[in-house]
């Protein structure tokens, strides 16, 4: 006992810089802001990062595509070297084997080029070959029909890619827009989150579920999907099987909605901003929602009856999901931790949650997203509209958008490649019913708020 007690004194809490290199959220900030800084420096010196941020152009025939890819082979190779280098530094710091990551990332990169190029085919919209959906479907097909070697899966980092993409997305989003739309996003998301969580929790309890499982399910549906479930599972001290059950249901519904929400929105001819807000309110995971929002944004200008510009879907989605829902996970965790400790049955484990919980669980990449927005807004401030369109957009905003699109492409493919349905936990009927009750409330309430209550607001976002 004495020796064990001495270990009590020998362990101390150490806050500090190590956190800055130990979580992928921080690495998403370093990579996203690093790329933005490079783009800004080149822009300020009269050049542009555009040469590196190569993207496939429109094509009509396969020989055209082949010629285009061959002509830009050097740029694609350079872009791979850039991504591989910066991602390798990050994964090495996170403890992921770089020797396994690199060949896996090469696979992701090459397949992403093909999917990106397919989306640029001038008949792609006619056949509904939207790149996010193609990436997801192809990934699902591969993951569920073959057994990929473990080393090849090292580069399928869905969350890492999406966080980098969201930081870069901030570089194309005016900070004034965040200030203007943020409060509405928070209000709408709060209404839906509270209603969804309440529904899942109450129905779950009525069905006899453990409160901790009901809370873990509720957070997955109401806050931020898999991240919400895993955060709340830890905060309330859930049984080890609770998080996998919640995660299975989150992923199941998230994948259904990647396809369903854009298709329903398309059938109803929702404006891009309105559809983005609905998807942001009702999708469960950041990556899944961005796939749906980008798919819908791609309809703009290609499908008759859909108004608003393409980026409005992603912008509205991001404001709703990231600002309206994700950033509140720490508060949800703190409140539920206190409730679990003081009101629910004891587990023999003492929890000591404090206000620090809010920052510990805060999705730090949001800080990078806001900084990126501030930087490009400040740069744009010195230009009139004509100058902004003629100089800032082609030399700074468009290349950063191109890099962002690559990060999203890696993410969308990785979603499918990591989704092996046979590996998921069997949720059971009662958790399924409880979660699905929340899904129904979430989708209907999100639809009413996006298309009726705040319809004018979200439509204006896309003008």
């Amino acid at each position, binding site marked *: *006992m004495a020796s*064990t*007690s001495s*270990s*009590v004194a*020998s*362990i*101390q*809490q*150490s806050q500090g810089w*190590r*956190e800055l290199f*130990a*979580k*992928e959220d*921080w690495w998403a900030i370093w990579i996203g802001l690093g790329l933005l800084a490079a783009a800004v420096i080149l822009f300020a010196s009269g050049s542009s990062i555009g040469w590196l941020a190569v993207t496939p152009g429109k094509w009509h025939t396969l020989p055209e595509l082949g010629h285009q890819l061959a002509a830009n082979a050097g740029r694609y190779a350079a872009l791979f070297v850039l991504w591989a280098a910066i991602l390798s530094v990050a994964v090495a710091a996170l403890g992921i084997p770089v020797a396994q990551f690199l060949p896996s990332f090469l696979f992701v990169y090459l397949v992403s080029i093909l999917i990106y190029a397919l989306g640029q085919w001038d008949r792609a919209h006619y056949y509904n070959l939207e790149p996010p959906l193609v990436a997801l479907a192809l990934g699902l097909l591969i993951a569920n029909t073959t057994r990929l070697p473990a080393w090849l899966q090292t580069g399928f980092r*869905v*969350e*890492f890619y999406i966080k980098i993409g969201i930081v870069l997305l901030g570089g194309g989003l005016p900070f004034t827009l965040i200030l203007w739309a943020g409060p509405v996003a928070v209000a709408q998301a709060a209404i839906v989150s509270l209603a969804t969580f309440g529904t899942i929790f109450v129905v779950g309890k009525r069905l006899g579920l453990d409160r901790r499982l009901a809370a873990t399910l509720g957070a997955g549906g109401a806050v931020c*999907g*898999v*991240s*919400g479930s*895993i*955060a709340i*599972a*830890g*905060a309330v*001290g*859930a*049984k*080890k099987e*609770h*998080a*996998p059950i919640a*995660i*299975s249901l989150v*992923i199941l519904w*998230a994948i259904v909605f990647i396809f369903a929400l854009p298709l329903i929105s398309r059938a109803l001819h929702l404006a891009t901003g309105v559809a983005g807000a609905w998807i942001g309110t009702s999708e*469960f*995971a*950041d990556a899944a929602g961005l796939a749906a929002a980008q798919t819908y944004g791609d309809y703009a200008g290609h499908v008759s009856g859909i108004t608003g510009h393409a980026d409005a879907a992603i912008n509205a989605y991001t404001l709703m999901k990231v600002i309206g829902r994700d950033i509140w*996970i720490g508060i949800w965790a703190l409140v539920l*931790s206190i409730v679990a400790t003081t009101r629910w049955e004891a*587990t*023999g*484990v*003492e*929890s000591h949650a404090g206000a620090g*919980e809010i920052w*510990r*669980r805060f*999705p*730090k990449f949001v800080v990078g997203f806001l900084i990126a927005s501030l930087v490009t807004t400040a740069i744009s401030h010195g230009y009139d509209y004509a100058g902004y369109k003629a100089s800032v957009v082609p030399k700074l905003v468009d290349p950063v958008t191109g890099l962002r699109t690559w990060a999203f492409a890696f993410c969308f493919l990785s*979603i499918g490649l*990591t*989704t092996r349905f046979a*590996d*998921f*936990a069997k949720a059971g009927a009662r958790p399924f019913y409880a979660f699905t009750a929340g899904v129904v409330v979430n989708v209907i309430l999100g639809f009413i708020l996006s298309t009726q209550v705040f319809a004018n607001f979200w439509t204006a976002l896309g003008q």
Partner: protein
Amino acid sequence: MSAGRIPPMAFPDVATAPRCAACRHFDNAPESLEGAIPGLKVMGSGYGAARAEDGLCEIRGRYLSADCRCADFEPRSPARLRYTQSVKVI
């Protein structure tokens, strides 16, 4: 680690027990969590901030905050603390 080797009630007063972060029964290594929790890697991550330093307790069969305490605490070797970024042994 079999349950039989655990000294019963090593910390009868739970308040004096160190945090789970330093316990040998507590595993919060990101890669092992991604292996132990199916689906975590699909639309989430073991390396994300929202997870904080939470981990699985093999004794309690629960997913716990690294700040928790219980009577079954047993110290783990310093080498295994490498994943608990906010804790160091001095």
